[in-house]
């Protein structure tokens, strides 16, 4: 078992002539909650998709748990996409069956318990559920796995502030302690308290990677304020066009 869960070296991804990730080099350890922070279009989702093998990098290397992305990494990664991908005729209990078949680390009993505490009836069909309830089901499926790496792409973007706290608490109380959570968001003030580390992306490049406590100690301000300052300068660059 490698000490570092994620090791990315000069990772680059281009779509046509547009670079979504540029020379991303970073390493992330185990047992951490890491925020992948950046404005829209900064490469957050691209990075996550490369980690779970949905996109191939154009250049550079990436190792998860010491191995290149592949069978092993897929078995230990639990991924929450930024959109719903389940068939709407299914019930949550059908999804339990599906996940039990696919993932050795899926804990069905835990999923049922989480549904209960989130107020979701697992025998309802997905199409009868509200958008927020569907998102909760999706989160339950992801967090009920005893994974090494949880990749959560915008887990709180679509829900109201009360549900946000609820979802963050669900993440906090349910992630596998030896595992790492990497969550992308632009709602920094909401997630700041739960993060160990923050990773700032701008136009596909890492511009900051440090612990939240270090940032607060050295800057004397919250990660949220720092983020607002750093990205306030961005509109000026529009002057080049």
């Amino acid at each position, binding site marked *: 078992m490698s000490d570092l869960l994620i090791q990315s070296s000069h990772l680059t991804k281009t779509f046509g002539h547009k670079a979504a990730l540029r020379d991303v080099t970073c390493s992330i350890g185990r047992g951490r909650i890491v925020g992948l922070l950046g404005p829209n279009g900064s490469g957050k989702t691209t990075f996550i998709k490369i980690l779970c093998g949905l996109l191939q990098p154009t250049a550079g290397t990436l190792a998860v748990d010491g191995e290149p992305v592949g069978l092993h990494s897929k078995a230990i990664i639990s991924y929450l996409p930024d959109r719903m991908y389940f068939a709407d005729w299914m019930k949550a209990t059908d999804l339990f069956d599906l996940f039990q078949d696919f993932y050795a680390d899926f804990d069905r009993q835990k999923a049922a318990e989480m549904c209960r505490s989130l107020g979701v009836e697992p025998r309802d069909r997905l199409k009868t559920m509200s958008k927020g309830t569907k998102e909760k089901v999706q989160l339950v499926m992801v967090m009920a796995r005893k994974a090494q790496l949880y990749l959560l792409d915008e887990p709180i973007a679509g829900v109201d502030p009360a549900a946000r706290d609820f979802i963050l608490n669900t993440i906090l109380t349910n992630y596998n302690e030896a595992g790492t959570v990497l969550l992308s968001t632009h709602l920094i003030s909401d997630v700041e308290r739960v993060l160990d580390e923050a990773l700032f992306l701008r136009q596909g490049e890492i511009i900051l990677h440090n612990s939240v*406590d270090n940032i*607060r*100690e050295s800057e004397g301000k*919250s990660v949220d304020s720092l983020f607002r300052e750093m990205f306030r300068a961005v509109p000026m660059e529009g002057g080049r066009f």
Partner: protein
Amino acid sequence: MDWILTDDRPIWMQLSEQMARRIVAGQYAPGSKLPSVRELAADAGVNPNTMQRALSQLESDGLAVANRTAGRTVTEDTAAIEAIRHRMARQVIGEFLSAVRALGYTREDIIKLLKEEENHE
């Protein structure tokens, strides 16, 4: 229980101070068992690693004791708790004095004001 977290300082420091305040105020009695890191973290809505760091600070301050199997307990050393309580009170008084002096009150004025306030209560 309420946790107040401000933006300007590391979260673990603030958590550690608030735990210390609870201990000196007797909310957690000397020798009693403290809730687990996970419970406290969930209650404050913070990362368990952050809470862990806050509790380690309590240990180095001498307010909490780690036991190998039974989690953490509040120290039984009431003299140590009292010393820290005294230090905290002095700090609050110091802040009060500089704030009132900034309003132009002298030492005698302040004592007079405090006595008046006492009669009001």
